[in-house]
């Protein structure tokens, strides 16, 4: 990733700059991070709640019982696994479609460029309830049964635009002469693409992937229409919440967070080791 913009070997200058500017920036950033996590703390806390009734709204007392039996509601667990599956697969597909789209739009002007540009925004603007219903009608016209595949198709459809726009933010200002340099040195266009272009826009792709994953995991209305009798995680939670809010929802949510956190930390440590060695 640091192939050409040699950040890590840039000379570190020691400057006398107003420290407060630097600190206040970090403090503000920290506060924003805190803001992002405020509800998370509540969610984690309430996973230890001990309500007597079916609702988990007010703090009643501390218990580890919920953690002892996190898979108490098999439907919840299954729905979660399904949603992660769909998010993962749909993101992969949409990443391919969207990245190609983003690069093509920036790399060179071509006829119809503006039209494609404008068209890309449209899926973002369409209200979910009508698109969901229209997609369902479409699937039925094709004779497809609503279920896993139709959910996947619908998710990819709305993810592509998000991904294209995010990757594009990275690709703009890309130094295309790098490609020329590579090809001057004898690499084929394909090799250039994979060895030069792609690695430099990877942060954009990763960011787009993360956004797409979050979008898919959270989608309710479109999924509702095209899911048939398949139940995804948001569908389950949205339905369940009206009847009861078992603490197991909090437990599973916390578990996902903890696992992801551990993976992240492991990744960081691993990179550190690599650099040191």
């Amino acid at each position, binding site marked *: 990733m640091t192939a050409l913009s040699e950040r890590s070997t840039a000379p570190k200058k020691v400057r006398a700059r107003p420290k407060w500017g630097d600190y206040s920036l970090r403090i503000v950033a920290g506060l924003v991070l805190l803001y992002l996590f405020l509800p998370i703390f509540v969610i984690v806390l309430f996973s230890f709640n001990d309500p007597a009734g079916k609702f988990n709204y007010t703090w009643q007392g501390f218990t580890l019982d919920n953690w002892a039996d996190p898979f108490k509601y098999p439907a919840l667990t299954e729905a979660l696994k399904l949603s992660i599956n769909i998010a993962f697969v749909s993101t992969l597909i949409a990443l391919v479609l969207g990245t190609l789209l983003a690069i093509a739009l920036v790399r060179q002007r071509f006829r119809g460029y503006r039209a494609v540009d404008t068209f890309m*925004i449209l899926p973002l603007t369409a209200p979910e309830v*009508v698109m969901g219903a229209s997609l369902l009608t479409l699937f039925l016209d094709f004779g497809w049964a609503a279920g896993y595949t139709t959910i996947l198709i619908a998710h990819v459809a709305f993810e592509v635009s998000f991904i294209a726009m995010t990757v594009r933010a*990275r690709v703009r200002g890309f130094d295309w002469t790098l490609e020329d340099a590579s090809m001057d040195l004898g690499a084929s266009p394909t090799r250039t693409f994979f060895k030069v272009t792609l690695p430099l826009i990877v942060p954009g792709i990763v960011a787009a992937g993360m956004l797409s994953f979050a979008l898919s995991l959270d989608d309710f209305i479109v999924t509702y229409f095209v899911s048939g009798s398949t139940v995804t995680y948001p569908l389950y939670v949205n339905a369940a919440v009206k009847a009861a809010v078992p603490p197991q929802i909090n437990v599973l949510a916390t578990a996902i967070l903890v696992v992801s956190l551990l993976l992240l930390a492991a990744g960081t440590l691993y990179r550190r080791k690599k650099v040191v060695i």
Partner: protein
Amino acid sequence: MAGVATSGRQRSKIAPYLMILPALAYLAVFFVVPFFSLARTSLSSSGGSVYLPTLTFDWNFANFADAFTLYKDPILRSFGYAGVATVLCMLLAFPLAYVIAFKAGRFKNLILGLVILPFFVTFLIRTIAWKTILADEGWVVSALGSVGLLPDEGRLLSTSWAVIGGLTYNWIIFMILPLYVSLEKIDPRLLEASRDLYSGGTRSFRKVIFPLALPGLLAGSLLVFIPAVGDFINADYLGSTQTTMIGNVIQKQFLVVKDYPAAAALSLGLMGLILAGVLMYTRALGTEDLV
């Protein structure tokens, strides 16, 4: 902002078409076709059975006229809420994205991961948690109340600020990530140089950092604003009877009143308005391209 390849080398003429083909073909089937049927419905009149109406296409532009006269308020409100939420997202996201891009060093990926983590918990659970934090009797509201910072209604929940807060919180990740991605590729030596040149933080920001961050800012603001305008779920859970957004109207018209032409006309109208807004916005920002 040179986003386009300027190269003397002969570029493959068909390459771009090949690259956009998969996405366009996919969307042609799974977006354009449903979109056309929506457009058709918006210009139809419905009659016959209540639940399975026959829709006759008859260029019924009255659907649009009715929609916009009846629902002017929710439309304006939605644009307003979304606009404020977008600005808030920009203000909050920038410091964080900046710090991650330039000050985080080896913890960059960790913090980035942290930032997206809350969004793997579904919207509803996050919103319930916020309702717990901002409860009328909770300490947050009491604290703000004693300082006199509460909206007219004397509470935080079920107000327009709660809806805006919900929109901001739920879409901010779509501002942070594109912004980060755009900032991260700025060569820090440029920053050093600009600070030397302008000997001050603000001018260096205005002249160098901001323009370079523009693609990310642009992408981010569109990715936040556009979905926020059509949002209905924040108004549902965090709003009051006075904060109805156009998304709620479309939901109701479609699901409960079952006036499919009206729902379709509102949807299409909304899409058109958003597109127009986006075009004006990008022109104002001075970019040559749409995005």
